[in-house]
């Protein structure tokens, strides 16, 4: 037990920190080989049953995303960044694509903007459901876990119809998207949203309004407005603390300026509010999906790729899109061979979107080569993880999953 070593007798090793435990406390390691954690570790100092010091220790799935990006062609970075959070793939890669588009000067056309918005919202729902499922099983509520993952399947299926892949969509590309929606998609999407609305009520009944779960979450891990802004928390967690900040609101991107939706902001800032914030966000995402689908249905299938790229397209590309070639999928937007050796004009660009877990920020710098000079990624989970250190002390050890789960953690994202 490393915790019993006192700092006096151990020589100070470089890169190692030795902290002395105060009397009557002991350390518990939650993770990385623990049923209640992902690929991360929380070092908890416990006094009896009360946590006194909580140290989120990240770095178990660090994959040097930013450095890898510097050695890859521009387009090849899209599938790479997707690996940060494959359950939220479109939201995670979109700001990178947007930033590069800013350098290229290729604003995506309207239809592409709506298609991106549509997939982003599908991803957001899937990612929230994933988070809620994990949250449920943390509190021992296996039914919510299974329900959330089962219902997530509905939206993954929608995304699969749209993009051809369940999770790693690699959907947005510079100047547009890679596919248009299939013919029966609007109908399916409407069915799915209707279904999900009913289900959310049942979720509330069996989970959020269940007295057992409520008493676990209410007044647990209260994050005040001040603390949340000070720590730089983002996403639904921030809005559950009463801060009105959402990139979709403050800096509308893609089609978010044209669709109508609400941004739920909760006052309480406890775990229950964070859970409710997700449920309400799913409701709003369903609204957005419906509006986007309506728009896409009304407008003709053109303008899914920026003119600069699509005008050079040979006839075959249009044939593929209209489904003339019977062995390949319909409504596929072929990529220009130009993409394989794209050179981006020198410059610096910055883009951010509201991903499922919060604000996703990319800073891209190009020196005119076919690989980026620098890509800086700030992911939402990385910004949220610090909250554990401040919220958990003073709570009981059993509250750890209640707080941990309510933040909708995703280790691969906060490590990058």
């Amino acid at each position, binding site marked *: 037990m490393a915790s019993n070593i006192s700092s006096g007798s151990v020589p100070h090793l470089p890169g190692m920190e030795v902290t002395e435990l105060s009397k009557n406390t002991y350390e*518990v390691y939650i993770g990385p080989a*623990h049923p*209640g954690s992902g690929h991360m570790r929380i070092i908890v100092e416990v006094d009896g049953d009360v946590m006194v010091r909580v140290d989120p220790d990240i770095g178990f799935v660090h994959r040097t995303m930013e450095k890898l990006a510097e050695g890859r062609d521009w387009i090849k970075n899209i599938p790479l960044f997707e690996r940060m959070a494959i359950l939220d793939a479109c939201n995670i890669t979109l700001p990178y694509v947007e930033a590069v588009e800013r350098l290229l000067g290729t604003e995506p056309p309207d239809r592409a903007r709506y298609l991106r918005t549509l997939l982003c919202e599908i991803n957001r729902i899937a990612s929230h459901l994933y988070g809620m499922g994990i949250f449920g099983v943390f509190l021992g509520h296996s039914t919510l876990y*299974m329900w959330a993952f089962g219902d997530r399947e509905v939206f993954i299926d929608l995304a699969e119809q749209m993009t051809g892949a369940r999770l790693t969509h690699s959907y947005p590309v510079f100047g547009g998207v890679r596919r248009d929606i299939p013919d029966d998609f609007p109908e399916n999407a409407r069915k799915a949203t209707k279904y999900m609305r009913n289900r959310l009520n049942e979720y509330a009944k069996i989970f959020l309004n269940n007295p057992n779960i409520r008493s676990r979450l209410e007044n647990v891990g209260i994050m005040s407005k001040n603390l949340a802004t000070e720590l730089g928390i983002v996403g639904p967690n921030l809005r559950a603390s009463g801060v009105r900040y959402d990139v979709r609101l403050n800096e509308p991107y893609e089609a978010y300026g044209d669709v109508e939706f609400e941004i739920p902001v909760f006052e309480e800032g406890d775990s229950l509010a964070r859970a409710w914030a997700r449920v309400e966000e799913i409701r709003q995402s369903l609204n957005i999906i419906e509006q986007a689908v309506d728009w896409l249905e009304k407008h003709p299938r053109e303008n899914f790729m920026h003119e600069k790229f699509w005008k050079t397209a040979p006839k075959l590309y249009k044939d593929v899109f209209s489904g003339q070639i019977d062995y390949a999928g319909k409504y596929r937007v072929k990529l220009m061979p130009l993409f394989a050796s794209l050179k981006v004009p020198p410059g610096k660009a910055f883009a951010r979107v509201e991903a499922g877990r919060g604000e996703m920020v990319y800073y891209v710098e190009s020196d005119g080569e076919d690989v980026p000079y620098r890509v800086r990624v700030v992911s939402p989970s990385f910004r949220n993880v610090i909250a554990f250190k401040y919220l958990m002390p003073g709570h009981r050890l059993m*509250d750890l999953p209640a707080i941990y789960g309510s933040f909708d953690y995703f280790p691969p994202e906060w490590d990058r």
Partner: protein
Amino acid sequence: MNVWYLIYRVIIDDIIFYPPIYQFLIIPGLIAALIVALIIIWFERKAAAFVQMRYGPREIAPKIGGAIQLVADLTRYALQEIIIPETVDVLPYLLSPIIMIILALLPLEAVPITSIRTYYPIPPDYSLLIAVALSTLSPLFIIIMSWASNNKFAVVGGVRESFIITAYELIAVLGFLSVAAMTQSFNLVQIVNLQMSGKWFGLLNPIALLVVFIAVLMSTSGFPFEIPDSESELVAGPYTEYTGLLYGLNMGGAYIKRWVFSILITIVFLGGWAPYRPTPGIITGYFIPSLIISIKALIVMAIMSFLRSVYGRYRVDQALGIAWEILIPLTLVAFGLGLAEAYFGII
């Protein structure tokens, strides 16, 4: 007389149906408990699967809905290597799961399961008190287990277990005794006989039934009180260091405890072998009433198992709060209700 017939009588009468052996080992003891565990664990998985958009166990014997899945699981547990960590205190580590199971079954020795005098395991005059008292022994070994494991998670789990014991024990005892207050008797046979008319004490005193039901959930760490071994922060609580068959024993221990309590609930609150009236004879006087009790207890257990798919788990201080702030006053109310019913002669 035929010698074979004599041997047969000896085996049947004096060995199999000798009450202490029959009740401890056969019905409702070990063998019935194993069969019940088979059925209940299967039911628990299936019920959870029904609620949770799944099919549940199916691949082994799909024709009967995977009912023998547990046999496969037990085989796996039995064949698994038992790893004894170096840091454990070996003797208590090995012995406590076994002693826990034996002690968990012990209350059955005090419970009469028929009204025929020859088949009482012990004189039934104070059987309710003795059964409840015996049921409090086995949890101690969970605490020993966790201490012997010498593991932080196990110790925290053990501490939680000890907290929970202090919470539920008083409730269970008082809840059962509120029936004694109604009947002015600790004699389980008399308690069942009083319920023969169809006025089950569970209906006359539903508060006591509810309170005991919740206390049993707490004692057997069933949802929503699955606190000592909550896996999301304590891995497996007191059982963290156990592997293979010993771990299987631990898991079985909780089910056996729940089974014993269900039998007690059945006898005290749900009319025991009522509406059936035992008549002398092994089959009609002993076997059939024991079956009736088992089936009723099985239903009680099924309801307990179903709760898993609806509830999560309470925090330990909340569970204690529920016990001390809500359930104990409720138990006192139930006790008063019992006294009042006895006073006004409703029984």
